C-alpha cells in the first residue's frame, strides 16, 4: 500500500493544508503554526535527504524538549527515515552503544548537547545552530514526495535487554497507523484539543503525544525536566487548558498528592507504563472529573496493545488493562500455547497489525519473542510473547498480574535485571552479581544488587555505584549494593534469590521494644522517617539520634512534614522535644491546632457530629 494517507507525515501535511494558521506547538510562551512547523520540518527533511537519509535509514535525535524536537521527528519521517530517540541524560557508554547498534548515519541534536558526540563518526547536526539548515525558499519549504511502503520503519526505540545491552525495537508505519486509528476512534482528538507533551521521548508512550498533531490538536510541550515538577505541571495544565494528558502511575500518584485545582478543560487522562493500582484508581476517581484510561502495551506492540476506560467504580479491587485495541488480538496461553479458561493465569500474547517488525540486528531474539500465531487464519501471522502474566476477568477484560521473567517495571521504567547484573559482572573486580527488586518498606520497591568481589582487589560500594552511574541510566542504578562472600543457594544449586539478606536493618535483630504507630499522624511521621533510616520498621518510641539522625536529617524531615501536613515545627523543638515519633506527633498536633482558629475547629466539629458511625469508623482507619 502506498496511498498518501497511510503515512503519518502525510496525514500531518493534510492537516497543515486544512489549518495552516492554527497553532501547532506551544513551548515556554512561544508558538508555531502548522504552516511554520511544516516548513521547518520540510527544510530539515530536504537536508536529511541530501545527507542520504531514506527508507529504513536510522537518524538519531538527541534533544531536550523544544520546537526542534518536534520538528526533527516530522523531518525524519518526511525524509523517509526512521528516528532513534537518544535521551541526553543517558550515560556516554549507552549512547555510544545505541549509535553503533542502530548504525545511525545522522544525529540531530542541539548545540548544548553536541559535545556528547565527539567520538561519533557520522554526520552530527545541531539544528539550532545558525546556518545548519538550508535557507527558507519555495523549494526547501515544500513537502517532499518520497515513495514509501507501509512496512518501512518509522522509528527504532531501545528497551532494556537481558544480555546486558539494550535492544532496538523496529516499528513500521503500518503498526503506528493501526494504533493511531484506535486512538482517534476512542479520544476523537480534534482542533479543540490541547495535548501535553511531557512523557520523556525515549519512552515510546510519548509517540502518540507528538502524533496528535495529525488530528489538528495543539501540542503544548513541557519545559525540559518539567515532567518531574508537580507544581509546574498543575499550573501548566491549568494555564494552557490542556484537554489530554498522559501519566505513568507513579507520577500520577505524586501529582495527585500536590495541592489540586479544578481543571475544567481536562477531558482525558491516560495512564500507561506500569500497573495502575486499585487505590490510585479510586483516588483519581474521587479527585478528578476527567475520564481515566488505563492503557497497556510493550514497545514491541507499538505504544499500546490494550485499553480500559475507567468505570469510576472506586470499590474495585483490580484494575483491568482492558481489551485488545482494534486491529489486534490478545491471548492468554499456558506453556503449551493453549488458551486458558477465564480466571486462570497464563502468559499474555499479543497479535495483529500493531506488532513491531522485530529487533534490530537480532533475528534470533525476534524469532524467540515473535512466534507464529496459531490462532490466526492469516498466513505468516505472528504473536508477541509479552512475558507478563494475566487472566481473563468475567467481563472479558484482561487483568495483568506482573512479570513472568527477569524483567521488571519500576517507576514506569522497564528494566531487565540481567542487564544490571551483567554490567556489574563486567567490572574487572566483580566475579558474580545478582540484582533483585526488594520491598523492605511496604509500597517502596527498590533495586538491590548483590555481588561477590574478586578476592584480591574488591571494589567498594561507592566505586561500583560510580561505575554503574557512568554506564546505566539513573533509574537502573540499584539503591542498594551489597557485598557478599558467597550467594545462598537452593537445593538444586541455583542462587537462592529469596534468601539474599535484606540490605535494610531488621527490627528483629535488636532486643529493644517496638511500638507501632497508634494514630494517623504517627503513621504519617513513621512513613516520613522511614525514607531517611535504613530500618524496616520504625517504632514510635525510637530515638531520632539512636536511629542515626542528625541535624541535617532533621531539617529534611521537617520540610517533608510541612509538605505533607502543612505544619511547621521548629528545628529546635524537634531536636529537644520531638526526638521520637510519639513526641514529634504531639508537636505536630499542637501546631495543627494552633494554626486553626476557633471558627474552623467548630465547623470541623459540626461536620463530624453529622457523620454516621460508619463514617466515623472509616475516618479512624
Amino acid at each position, binding site marked *: 500500500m502506498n496511498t498518501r494517507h497511510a503515512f503519518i507525515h502525510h496525514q500531518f501535511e493534510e492537516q497543515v493544508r486544512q489549518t495552516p494558521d492554527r497553532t501547532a506547538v506551544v513551548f515556554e510562551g512561544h508558538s508555531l503554526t502548522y504552516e511554520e512547523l511544516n516548513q521547518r520540518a520540510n527544510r530539515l527533511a530536504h537536508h536529511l535527504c541530501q545527507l542520504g537519509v531514506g527508507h529504513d535509514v536510522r537518524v538519531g535525535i538527541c534533544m531536550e524538549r523544544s520546537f526542534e524536537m518536534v520538528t526533527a521527528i516530522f523531518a525524519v519521517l518526511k525524509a523517509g527515515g526512521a528516528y532513534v530517540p537518544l535521551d541526553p541524560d543517558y550515560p556516554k557508554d549507552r549512547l555510544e552503544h545505541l549509535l553503533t547498534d542502530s548504525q545511525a548515519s545522522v544525529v540531530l541534536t542541539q548545540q548544548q548537547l553536541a559535545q556528547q558526540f565527539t567520538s561519533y563518526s557520522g554526520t552530527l547536526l545541531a539544528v539550532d545552530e545558525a546556518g545548519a539548515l538550508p535557507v527558507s525558499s519555495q523549494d526547501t519549504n515544500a513537502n517532499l514526495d518520497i515513495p514509501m511502503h507501509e512496512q518501512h520503519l518509522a522509528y527504532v526505540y531501545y528497551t532494556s535487554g537481558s544480555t546486558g545491552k539494550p535492544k532496538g525495537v523496529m516499528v513500521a508505519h503500518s503498526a503506528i497507523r493501526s494504533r493511531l486509528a484506535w486512538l482517534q476512534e476512542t479520544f476523537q482528538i480534534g482542533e479543540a484539543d490541547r495535548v501535553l507533551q511531557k512523557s520523556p521521548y525515549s519512552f515510546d508512550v510519548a509517540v502518540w503525544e507528538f502524533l496528535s498533531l495529525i488530528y489538528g490538536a495543539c501540542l503544548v510541550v513541557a519545559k525540559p525536566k518539567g515532567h518531574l515538577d508537580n507544581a509546574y505541571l498543575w499550573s501548566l495544565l491549568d494555564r494552557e487548558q490542556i484537554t489530554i494528558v498522559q501519566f505513568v502511575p507513579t507520577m500520577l500518584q505524586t501529582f495527585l498528592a500536590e*495541592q*489540586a485545582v479544578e481543571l475544567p478543560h481536562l477531558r482525558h487522562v491516560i495512564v500507561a507504563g506500569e500497573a495502575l493500582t486499585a487505590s490510585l484508581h479510586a483516588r483519581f476517581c474521587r479527585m478528578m472529573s476527567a475520564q481515566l484510561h488505563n492503557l497497556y502495551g510493550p514497545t514491541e506492540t507499538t505504544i499500546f496493545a490494550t485499553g480500559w476506560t475507567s468505570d469510576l467504580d472506586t470499590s474495585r479491587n483490580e484494575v483491568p488493562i482492558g481489551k485488545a485495541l482494534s486491529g489486534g488480538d490478545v491471548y492468554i496461553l499456558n506453556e503449551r500455547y493453549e488458551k486458558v479458561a477465564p480466571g486462570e493465569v497464563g502468559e499474555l500474547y499479543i497479535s495483529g497489525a500493531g506488532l513491531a517488525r522485530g529487533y534490530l540486528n537480532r533475528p534470533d531474539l525476534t524469532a524467540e519473542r515473535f512466534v507464529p500465531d496459531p490462532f490466526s487464519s492469516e498466513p505468516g501471522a505472528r504473536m508477541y510473547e509479552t512475558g507478563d502474566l494475566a487472566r481473563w476477568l468475567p467481563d472479558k477484560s484482561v487483568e495483568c498480574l506482573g512479570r513472568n521473567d527477569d524483567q521488571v517495571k519500576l517507576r514506569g521504567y522497564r528494566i531487565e535485571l540481567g542487564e544490571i547484573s551483567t554490567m556489574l559482572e563486567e567490572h574487572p573486580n566483580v566475579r558474580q552479581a545478582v540484582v533483585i527488586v526488594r520491598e523492605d518498606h511496604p509500597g517502596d520497591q527498590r533495586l538491590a544488587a548483590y555481588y561477590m*568481589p574478586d*578476592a*584480591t*582487589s*574488591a*571494589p*567498594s*560500594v*561507592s566505586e561500583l*555505584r560510580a561505575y554503574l552511574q557512568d554506564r546505566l541510566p539513573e533509574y537502573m542504578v540499584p539503591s542498594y549494593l551489597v*557485598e557478599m*562472600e558467597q550467594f545462598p543457594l537452593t537445593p538444586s544449586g541455583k542462587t537462592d534469590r529469596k534468601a539474599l539478606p535484606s540490605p535494610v536493618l531488621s527490627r528483629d*535483630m*535488636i*532486643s*529493644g521494644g517496638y511500638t507501632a504507630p497508634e*494514630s*494517623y*499522624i504517627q503513621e*504519617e511521621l513513621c512513613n516520613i522517617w522511614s525514607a531517611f*533510616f535504613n*530500618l524496616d520498621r520504625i517504632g514510635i518510641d*525510637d*530515638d531520632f*539520634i*539512636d*536511629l*542515626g*539522625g*542528625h*541535624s*541535617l*536529617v*532533621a*531539617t529534611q524531615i*521537617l520540610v517533608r512534614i510541612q509538605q*505533607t*501536613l*502543612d505544619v511547621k515545627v*521548629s*528545628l*529546635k523543638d524537634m531536636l*529537644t522535644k520531638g526526638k521520637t515519633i510519639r513526641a514529634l506527633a504531639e508537636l505536630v498536633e499542637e501546631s*495543627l*491546632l494552633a*494554626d*486553626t*482558629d476557633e*471558627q*474552623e*475547629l467548630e465547623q*470541623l*466539629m459540626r*461536620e*463530624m457530629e453529622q457523620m454516621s458511625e460508619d463514617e*466515623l469508623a472509616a*475516618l*479512624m482507619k
Partner: protein
Amino acid sequence: MANFVLSTHMTNGDVLPFLRIASALVKRGHQATLVTHGVFEPMAAKAGIGFVALDEPEEYAGIMKDLEMWKDPDMHQTYENKYYSIDKFMKEYTILKELCSREDSVLICKERDSYVAMMVSEALHVPIVTVVLAPSYATQLQVWKQMEADITAIDRINDFRKRIGLPPISGLAGWMGTVKKHIGFWHESFDAALDLPDWAIPIETVGFPLADSAEYETLPEDLTTFIQEREPPLLITGGTGKMIKPEFYWSAIEACKWMKRRTILVTRHEEFVHCELPDYIRWYKILPLAGVYPLVSGVINHGGIGTVSAAMFAGTPQLILGADTDRPDNGLRVKNMGVGDYLPPLYWQPQLVAERVEGILTSQTKARCVRLAEQLSRHDTMKTACEEIETLIDQPAYAISSETIRADYEQAERMRDHTAAQVKASTEERDEQLYDEKRAALKKLLLKRKLDKGSV
C-alpha cells in the same frame, strides 16, 4: 613571608589539624601562631610554632565537662553565659588583634565557632579562611538558618560588636556567609562517597590533616609487648571529648568480650569503663594513637573525623558506632568506601557489634584499606592546604566586609517585615480553605481526642 594567626577551640580533633597547618606553614618559611586552650602549649612548642594560650591548662578538664551542658536544653543559657561573655570575647579579641598587627597577616579559623577571629578580620581588614573539618559541616549553615531564632548568642555578639565599633549582624548564618574562602580537611575519595545537597557551601577539599611526624611518640613498652605477643588486637577509642553516649564503650567492650578478642581500650574517663576487664582487654587512659592504629587489626570508634582519617591512613578497617553531629555522615562514607562499617546507636548491642567487627576483618576490606592508605600517603595534604591558604596573602578582599554585613542586616530587616505581612496574609487565606490533607488530619485528631475522653 607572611604572618598566619590560627584560632580554634575545644577537643583534640578541633585543635590538632590547626597545629599541623601551623607547623607546615612554618616549614614553608612563614610565621604562624596558634591561639587556643593552654593545654596544647607543649605540643605547639614541640611543633616549633608560636602559641598564645586563651586559658590555663588546668581549666581544660572543666571546659570539656561543660560541653555536656549541650545535652540539656535547659543548660544552654548557662553555657552561653559562661563561654559567650563579653570578657571572654574581649580577651581573645585583644590577643588576635595584636597578633594580626602585621600588614601581611592572614587569619585561619574553624568554621562556625570562631566569632572573635571573624570580628578581627572585619575590624582590621585581615583576610580570613575557615577550615571545615568534616563534609557534613558544609550543610550546617542551612541548619543554623532554621535554628537562628533560638540562638541568644546573637545578642551577645552584637553587644560586643557595638563595643568595638562594628555594625550589628542579622544572624549567624548570614554572618558566616560573608567568609569567602573555605577549605575542607578531607580527601576527595571521602568526598565522593556520599553526595551533599546542592546548597552546601562551596569548599576546596585539601585532604586529611594527618598526624605530623612530631606527633608520633614512643609507645609504652608494656603496650608494645601486649601487641606483639599474639595476633594483632582490636582498638576501642571514642576520642578525647566526653560528648559521647556511654553505651558506646559499653557495647564495644561487651562485643570484644563476646568475641574474646584481644583489645586495647583507650579512654581517659573512668566512668565509661563499666566493668572489671578481662586480661585480654588492656585499658589505657591516654595513648599516642597515631602510632597505634597501624598495629591493630581493627578500630571500633565513635566516627570523629580525626580518628576516622587516622585509621584510614594506617590502612586499618574500622567499625563506627556514631551518633549525632558529623559522625553518622562520616560512618556512612566509611561504609560506602568499603573500608569499614557503621552502626547507629539503636544497634549497639554486643552481639550485633561483634558481628559487624567480624565483618570488617575480612581480607577484602583489609585490601581496600591498604589501597586507600597508599592513595592517602601519596597525597600531600599540608602542601595543598598551604597553597590554598597562601592565595590569601595581601588579599584584603578576603577580609570580612562591614558593608556586606550592613547590607545583609538591612535586607534581613526588610525581609522580616515582609515575611510578617506575608504570614498574616497567608494565614488568613489558609483559614478560608484548609487543605484536604490537613482537614483529614485535624478531623482524626479531634475525633481521637473525643474518643479518649469517652464523649463519642
